[in-house]
């Protein structure tokens, strides 16, 4: 047998012994490199064929033919694995996550990512939340009202600066969506928004009734910064609290007194001051539960320190904005509860 024939036979033995698994490709490359080093005249190279959606890989060995040209060797051992099984794919190939009954494909996830908007959560959590809502609306096959479609489309376009038809068409071209697919996509967003709106309206009144003080309208001022600066600021707020309580002219007078205190604080530097009216549950730290005139802090808050005082507290009433806020809180709690109960399987992480 010629040297080349002997090398070919050896090459086949090499290929038959290589582990055909993606996780062991490095091992295969090491073995092939050793073989190539032992046959320097053949300029051997291992080609790894990693198939999508399966841990199974294939190999080819390219070697130089002494008579010129390239010889490609491939070898499949007789390992008893049926043909279609060897060429099968993972059941979730092409899918990103399964949340209860919803299987989200990579293609759907990529489309969904375009509409993710929340800055207070990770894309992972927001995708799961969207899937939870999809579970709720998947049997809802009624028509989506035109005004909901229009609102969803307008919001989507505004969020991406698509201010006219030409810009929208250019965006569709860029993303590979047809106008029909875009329409269906916006329909899906509108349906999910509609569900959220209905659920918020359904849950809001009970949420408000359960803990109305969380929805008091509170006007407050608070400072954040280093512990020392905030402690000094808190002392100043306490010193001037009496002035504000007795200030002639009511709230305006109190705020005038507060303005002087804030100016003194700002002169010291190192603190950030916020004066705002919010729902009680939206206020930082213990301010949300503080009575009018009370000074709280300093307390540790999100890596910094906080102190503040409530200037005015108005008891919650079931008006539109308050019910809407209660609905948003209730919906977030409902979603968190559903997330806790859901079966969530990320297929490729």
């Amino acid at each position, binding site marked *: 047998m010629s040297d080349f024939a002997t090398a070919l036979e050896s090459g086949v033995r090499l290929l038959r012994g290589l582990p055909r*698994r993606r996780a062991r490709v490095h091992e295969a490359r090491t073995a092939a490199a050793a073989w190539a080093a032992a046959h320097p005249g053949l300029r051997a190279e291992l080609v790894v064929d990693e198939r999508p959606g399966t*841990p199974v890989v294939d190999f080819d060995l390219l070697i130089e033919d002494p008579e010129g040209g390239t010889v490609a060797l491939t070898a499949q051992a007789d390992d008893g694995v049926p043909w279609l*099984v060897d060429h*099968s794919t993972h*059941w979730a190939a092409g899918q990103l996550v399964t949340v209860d009954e919803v*299987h989200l494909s990579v293609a*759907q996830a990529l*489309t969904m990512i375009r509409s993710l908007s929340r800055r207070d959560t990770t894309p992972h959590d927001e995708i799961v939340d969207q899937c939870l809502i999809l579970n709720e609306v998947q049997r809802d096959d009624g028509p989506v009202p035109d005004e909901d479609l229009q609102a969803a489309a307008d919001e989507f376009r505004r969020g991406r600066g698509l201010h006219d038809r030409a810009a929208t068409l250019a965006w569709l071209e860029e993303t590979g969506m047809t106008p*029909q697919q875009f329409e269906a996509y916006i329909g899906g967003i509108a349906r999910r928004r509609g569900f959220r709106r209905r659920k918020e309206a359904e849950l809001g009144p009970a949420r408000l009734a359960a803990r109305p003080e969380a929805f008091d309208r509170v006007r407050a001022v608070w400072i954040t910064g280093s512990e020392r600066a905030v402690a000094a600021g808190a002392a100043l707020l306490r010193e001037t609290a009496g002035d504000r309580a007795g200030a002639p002219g009511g709230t305006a007078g109190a705020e005038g007194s507060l303005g002087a205190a804030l100016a003194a604080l700002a002169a010291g530097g190192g603190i950030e001051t916020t004066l705002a009216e919010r729902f009680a549950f939206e206020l930082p730290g213990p301010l949300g539960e503080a009575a009018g005139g009370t000074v709280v802090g300093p307390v540790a808050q999100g890596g910094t320190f906080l102190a503040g005082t409530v200037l005015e507290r108005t008891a919650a009433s079931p008006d539109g904005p308050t019910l809407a806020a209660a609905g948003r809180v209730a919906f977030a709690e409902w979603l968190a509860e559903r997330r806790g109960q859901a079966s969530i399987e990320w297929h490729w992480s």
Partner: protein
Amino acid sequence: MILVLSDRRDDAVEMVLPKLAARGAPVTWWDPGEFPAGSTLTAAFADGAHRIVLDTGSERLDLSEVRAVWRRRPNPPEPAAAVTDPSHRRHVVWQAEFLLDGAWELAPARWLPSRREVERRAHNKIIHMARAAELGFRIPETVYTNDPAELVPAYERAGGELIAKQINSDEFTVDGAGHRAYTTVLTRRHLTSRHRLRYEPVILQPYVRKAVELRVIVVGGRVFTAEIDSQASRTARDDWRHYDDDRVSYRAHRLPDGLGRRCVELVASLGLTYGAVDLILTPEGEYVFLEINPNGAWGFVEEQAGLPVSDAIADWLVAAENGKES
């Protein structure tokens, strides 16, 4: 009385039940998976006659009163938890299946789509493809084989555009993870492991180019056809069961005169009263037969393409109850 045999979580049954209620038809929904652990069945012979009574745990049903049975997605019999020895459990299932098959055979009802054995036979691709060819459907040049020597010639005949499919859908694992063998478009790489065909037969067919795919639902003599625009999706273009609903659209499709009738004939000739026929409409306008699934899904045909399949199923079941054919 209409008897529905299916899993309790079957959405398709949920879609039809309101239609049956609207028609005033009495219905019992029972899953054979509840037998014998949670239900009893007694077939009593005396004085030259017999009486078969099913007690589901919530109602007693004399099978002689059942006029129509919808055999949807029943679970196999399940032994009681107290039966723990694996050989005892197998024994329970074997005995229970035999009794159920006999009871269903004696029930004077008509069946949608059919009794178990008829469905099993009709589901066999080689059987229904032969029947479809006899009825004049255009079928792709198809090879069912485990002979490695067939692979390369089939690949060459197809001009290098060959697909492989399973003989029957099934689940298995690779390295412990669940895998599937969807419709596989072959490359030259697949030819290099031709010896593996010896271990298991497969289906080889030329790749048929698609304008759209069609699912034709036959209920008795009625035909509903949904068009699946699978070519709009890279994920689903070779096998729409990869589902990509963001991109794939579904709509009603009108079959040419005669083709719908041929679908009805195919279903009937296989002993079925229901069938889901999968066709391809080529860019040249030819309709190509792929397969028939005797209990194939129709929910998306109704929900996505707006075709009233659940009404047709309810009508068929109620017509039997009323002693009419449809």
